[in-house]
């Protein structure tokens, strides 16, 4: 028998609101705002209140999928990243670096988004970097 609240940060945008997940015997059963949080100060928007909805969602993607002739199929991360690198490299070589773009995500950390633009600018050599809010 264990009930506790686990502190986390809302992943839905860059504000970084504080959220508690109510955890009962290892299962997320609810959300509470963090009243002492310096940014959100005990408030959340509708996305923040529902942030754990995807955690145990039956349609949540847990592995990469690759679309082949017979439809989407389960792939390993190595296979998926290898395919992306191969295709991106081929497009860049054929049509130039500005023929591709990179979309960063508010669900990632600053550091992860920094790495994405680094990949875009330093490796692929394009400044086509934007974020998911303009997708």
């Amino acid at each position: 028998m264990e009930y506790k609240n686990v502190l986390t940060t809302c992943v839905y945008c860059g504000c970084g609101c504080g959220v508690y997940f109510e955890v009962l015997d290892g299962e997320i059963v609810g959300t509470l705002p963090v009243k002492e949080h310096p940014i959100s100060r005990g408030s959340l928007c509708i996305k923040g209140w529902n942030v754990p909805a995807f955690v145990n969602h039956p349609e949540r993607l847990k592995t990469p999928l690759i679309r082949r002739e017979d439809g989407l199929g389960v792939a390993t991360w190595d296979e998926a990243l290898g395919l992306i690198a191969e295709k991106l490299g081929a497009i860049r070589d054929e049509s130039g670096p500005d023929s591709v773009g990179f979309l960063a995500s508010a669900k990632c950390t600053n550091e992860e988004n920094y790495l994405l633009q680094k990949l875009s600018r330093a490796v692929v050599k394009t400044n086509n970097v934007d974020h998911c809010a303009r997708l």
Partner: protein
Amino acid sequence: MTENTIKELRAHVAEKLKELDGVVALRRTTEGTAPHLFQDGDDLAQLVMEPRYPLASVVSLLQKRFPKARFGIVARGCDSRALVEMAKREQIDPDRLYLLGVACTAGEAQECYCADPAPDTEQWPAAEVIGEPVEGAPPNPMVAEYEQMSLEERRAFWRQQFLKCIKCYGCRDICPECFCEACSLEDPLWVERGVLAPDFPMFHLIRAMHMASRCVACRQCELTCPAHIPLTVLYDLLRQDVGKILGYDPGADLEVAPPISLSLEDAPIKAKIV
């Protein structure tokens, strides 16, 4: 809350944990402060009284999940009143609950404009109160100001307030008395999806009507509202009317049945307590 009251409270909780399966209270760690189920052997130096969370909802969750367990709750006056209304709607079982009541200080009562700042232990099967109960604080002056307004001014006042609403549903989500299985505020018949601000005045009045005879003035809705809508003014006025017209004081008496029942067959409340 004075340091002495909290020390006394921690000692009482330690004592009660020997016989109960756990006590619901606030726990402060390096991560922050949140509701927690304290169990025998836990560090009670982490038990605190601020900031306030709807602890009654946690009791309901735990009692439903563990139908044989006996829990305690560290309850202020508002928590106790919330539990009373939940018990009447079969969301908690008073016979499996020990109420460790704490009397709010005069300052805390003033902060909430609370009329009833200490739990009434008389009505609970097993309860005590720690700290010296103080007199209730005078009501929110905004209520008297509102009552001086004409009908037109009142409409303009609420129109301006509700225009700020971002439909986060936080007022509903944090409310210990909001436990309907199907919420009218999610029914497209009443509330159009994807439209801001919500339809005036339906959205907030639907919730207000459902809160009549349930709202125990815990202020959780107002405190969590990102738009700073003075929701307690609305609910104070509502409670006034429920008192005047129906002679009912929500949270006051476990034995008095609520005058309004919204447990219609097509709008069932959540699974009842076992």
